[in-house]
Every structure is written in C-alpha cells, then in structure tokens.
C-alpha cells in the first residue's frame, strides 16, 4: 500500500491552486462593480461604455480571426456567465451557447438582454448580424442603461449621462449613412455573406447576390453552381460597384471571387463580423461606412481595418 502517498502528494498541488484561484476570484469591490458579459465583443463594448467604472465586462466572441458560427465556448466562459448579473446576447441562433451556459447556472436575479427580443424580431429572421443595423445599438444601449440603473440605483444618473454621451457619439456614423444614402441610393453591390447587409441596405444599396447564396456561405455549405456562376458574372460583367466580403471567413470560393473582382477592376471591401481590436463600436461602424464609400466613390479597396 505504498501508492496512496505519492497520489496524495499529486493531489495537493492542484487542490492548493484551486483554493488560491477561488480566493483570488473574490474582487475587493464586489459590491460596487457589476459583473457583465457581452456574448459578442461589440455588445461588451457598449456595456462598458454605459457602465463605465461600475461595471466589469467580459466578451465571449472576441477574436475577429475566426468564424463565429463555429464557436465553441470554454469552461472559463461558463464561469463568466455564471457570475454575471447582466448579459447581452444577440439571439437568432447566433449565440445559442449563451442559453446553454445560462441554463447550466440558473440565477433568477441575472438580467439577460436578448437583442432579437428587444427588437421584436421573429425567430425566422434570416440575417442574424443585428449589430450592423443602425437601429439596433441605440435600443440595446437604452436597455443596458435601464438594467444597470435598477441593479445600482445610486448610480442611475451616471449611467444616464453615459447613455446620452453614447447616443451623441453615434451621430457621425448615422450622418454619414444618411448623406451617402441620399446621394447614391440604388448603388449595386455583390456580397459573399449577409454580415453587413443591414448597413448596406441603410446606405441604399441594391444587393445583387441572391440571399440563399449568402446563407449557404454563412452556414458553411456549398452554394449551387448556378449561384456561383451568377456571382462570377456579376463581377466579370461589372454589374456591381463593389464586392463586400466577410474578411473573417475567407475560403477558396471567396478567394476566387476576390481574384475575379481584381481582374475586373471591381473594388473590394472586407467587413468584420466581430469588432476588430483598436476600435469601439461607433468608430468601427464609421470605418466600415468610409470603406464602402471609398470603394463606391474613389474605387478604393479596403481589405483590413
């Protein structure tokens, strides 16, 4: 019976580490800061802007170099969700992993803002990239402000001031959209995925790529050869002013469209599905509008922000 002893020693170290981690996880200002989670980093960013110093925010989908549609959550994510008192998630099947993690650690006091329900969208809404629509984030910010005000009533005025500042900071973006749309309504666009479709529509774009093709690429299944030919002809025949693609998901098909566009002299714009680093939500969206405008007006390609 010599074996239990080394085994015990083997167990001591990890156990000690667990205890240390458990102690370390207790924040000193736990009463003051609300723990919050944004399922996507653009929502996390808006929570941080409204909550300021009274909120500690974590984003779950934060890496703009991967495909969010194939994301798998980690145990660390589950722990964040478990301890969060405010959660903002997209809905429309985009972040079902959030629902699973919330069910795994039930907490009746936790507030969950599902953007889909907030906007009153039905489950069969085809395009889940809600944050690209100019009407989404003002509503989300308002909901965050009202939840934070009821979680920390003594700081309600602070949150309200942050909301006002956030709404004001969206103005350059919305002004750019209105100005471009007024001057160029009906400009023709080819896309690979529906990521930026809501923004393109707000800009007055006429999206020539069939939606089923966009959905196929988004869902990782092969588009029909008929639709591939249609897209190739759109680019080769100069049927569009710009090709907008999801620069987070570049497969061989996207690459072939990019080279078709280059050969035909059609400018390309790589849009982001997840907020790239070095940006906040409003400056990111403004940068996307400028990239699209630069392509349509100045024939300039923008592959990376």
């Amino acid at each position, binding site marked *: 019976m010599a074996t239990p002893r080394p085994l015990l020693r083997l167990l001591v170290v990890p156990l000690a580490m667990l205890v240390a981690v458990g102690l370390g996880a207790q924040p000193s200002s736990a009463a003051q800061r609300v723990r919050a989670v944004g399922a996507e980093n653009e929502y996390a960013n808006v929570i941080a802007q409204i909550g300021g110093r009274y909120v500690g925010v974590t984003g779950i989908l934060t890496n703009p170099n*991967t*495909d969010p549609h194939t994301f798998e959550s980690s145990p660390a994510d589950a722990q964040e969700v478990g301890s969060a008192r405010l959660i903002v998630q997209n809905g429309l099947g985009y972040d079902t992993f959030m629902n699973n993690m919330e069910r795994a650690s039930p907490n009746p006091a936790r507030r969950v803002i599902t953007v889909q329900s907030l906007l009153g969208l039905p489950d069969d809404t085809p395009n889940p990239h809600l944050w690209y629509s100019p009407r989404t984030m003002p509503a989300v910010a308002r909901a965050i402000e009202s939840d934070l005000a009821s979680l920390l009533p003594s700081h309600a005025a602070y949150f309200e001031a942050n909301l006002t500042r956030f709404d004001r900071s969206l103005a350059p973006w919305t002004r750019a959209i209105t100005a471009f749309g007024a001057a160029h309504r009906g400009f023709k666009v080819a896309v690979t995925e529906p990521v930026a479709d809501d923004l393109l529509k707000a800009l007055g774009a006429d999206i020539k790529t*069939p939606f*089923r093709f966009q959905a196929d690429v988004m869902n*990782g299944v*092969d588009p*029909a*050869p*008929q639709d591939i030919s249609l897209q190739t002809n759109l680019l080769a025949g100069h049927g569009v002013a710009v090709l907008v693609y999801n620069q987070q998901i570049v*497969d061989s098909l996207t690459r072939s469209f990019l080279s078709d566009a280059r050969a035909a002299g059609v400018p390309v714009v790589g849009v982001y599905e997840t907020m790239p680093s070095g940006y906040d939500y409003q400056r990111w969206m403004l940068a996307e509008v400028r990239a699209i405008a630069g392509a349509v007006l100045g024939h300039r390609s923008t592959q990376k922000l």
Partner: protein
Amino acid sequence: MHWLFEPGFFSSGPVHVALVIGGVSGVVSALVGVFTVVRGQAFGGHALTDVSTAGGSGALLLGLTPLTGFVAGGLLGGAAMEALGTEHERGRDVATGIVLGAATGLAALFLYLDATSGATSGTAQQVLFGSIFVVQSSILPAVVVLAALTVALVAALYRPLVLSTVSPEIAAARGVRVRLIGVLYMAALAMSVGLSSLTIGTVLSTALLIGPPAAALQITRSMGRALLAAALIGVATTWLGVLLSYDSFDWGSSHEAMPVSFFVVALVFAAYLAAGVSRRRPARLRDAEVR
C-alpha cells in the same frame, strides 16, 4: 433536352471543373478498385480515406490545397499500414484498424483547429463530403497528372499484380516480389483515394473505390472486361451525379442544389444492385431450362 439538362449546364464554369475531376477520379478509382476488391482490401482502402481526412484537414491548416494533403496522408497511411502489418491476414486487419483510429483522431483535431483558429469555414463539409462545385480550376493540371501517374503505375504493375493477387505463392515461386508489388499498389491506392476524396469527400470516397468495381465483377469474371466496365460505371455515376445535383437546383422553389456526393453514392449503390439483378436472371433461366 430541357427536362434533362437544366439551363446553363454546359456553359457553367463550376460544372466544367466538376465534370473533369469527377470523370478522371471515377475512372482511376474504378481501375484501382478492381484490384482492391479482388485482393479483399476494401477495409484497407477505407482506412486510407481516414488518413486522407487527417491529411486534407491538416493541409488546409497549413494553407495548402486539400488534394496535397489527401495524397500525402494516403501515402503515409499506406506506408504505416504496410510497416505495421504482417503477412498474416489478421495482422494486416489489426494494423489497418490501428492506423485508422489514430488518423481519425488527428482529423478531429485538425478539423477543430480549421474551424476555430483559421479564417475558413465549411472545412468539415469540404473534406468529409466533398465540394466539387467550389474547387478552383487551377487544380486541374495537378488532377490530370496525378491520374496519369496512378494509371501508369497500375499498368506497369498489371501482370505481377494480377498474379500476386490470384496466388501469392505461385507469384513468389515465379520470382515476383510480392511485398514490393503490395507496397507499390498501396501507393496507387493512396493516389486514387486522393482523387476521389476531392470529388465526393474522404468519407464517401470508398463508395467510388469499391462500388463500380464490385458492380463490374458481378457482371463479368474477366479481369480486362471488369476493368473496362468498372471505369464506365465510375464515369457514368460521377457525371450523372454532377448533372442531377445541378438539376436539383430547379426541383424546389428554394433553389438549393443537393450535394453531388449524395447523388454519386446513390447511383453507385443503384449500379451495384442492378448488376446483382442482371447476374441472377440468367441463373434463374438456367434453373427453368433444367426443369
């Protein structure tokens, strides 16, 4: 002709590429597969496709074309099975199973990494079930060269291969290096699996390798005729599969094309059943004559 060929079939770029790759891999798989069936190596052939899955998904991770990985994986897997395997039937079976399991585990890791760390999507679909309509035409020269190499290898091996397939003992007595022939044949098998993986994916490529030869061998027992019939069935099923997938775009109002690999495998299965029926009928007639 509209009821058979939906509009744009003959002018579609993706269809041209699919017909070339499908036709070439249909022929090559059939020729190699006849020996696979006769030698009783269907399981080994299937295991190679699993190693090809690891190769293809690993190649995508490195930014290479899947075809490179399919072939490299197949060659490595074939070598591993030959190295681990013994002369005994049972040893070969176990070696095949070990390699298959290890390779599939690697494939699980690579496919996960493809999806999570790379900016690609649809990798699993492409590797496992094939994406022949989205294959770039730049790969065609490599496909043709690989096919020519495989056919040349099988042709060069033909006599000793037939002999060592029918009776390894007699072959050895006549000075045929049975083991070497087996290794070279495994190389041909790996290359043909690479081609069929590009067409209908690694998981289903066994269907093209085994199906048309098995159907052909039900119709005829002559080696030459079986090779010819298998090649014809191989081309017919892949081309018809491409056509049906293209046409299926217009079958429903949602305008989605069903996968080529489904149609090819369904047609291969149908061909096998049909060959079985056509073989049985003369037998029954003979019974009737006797009575």
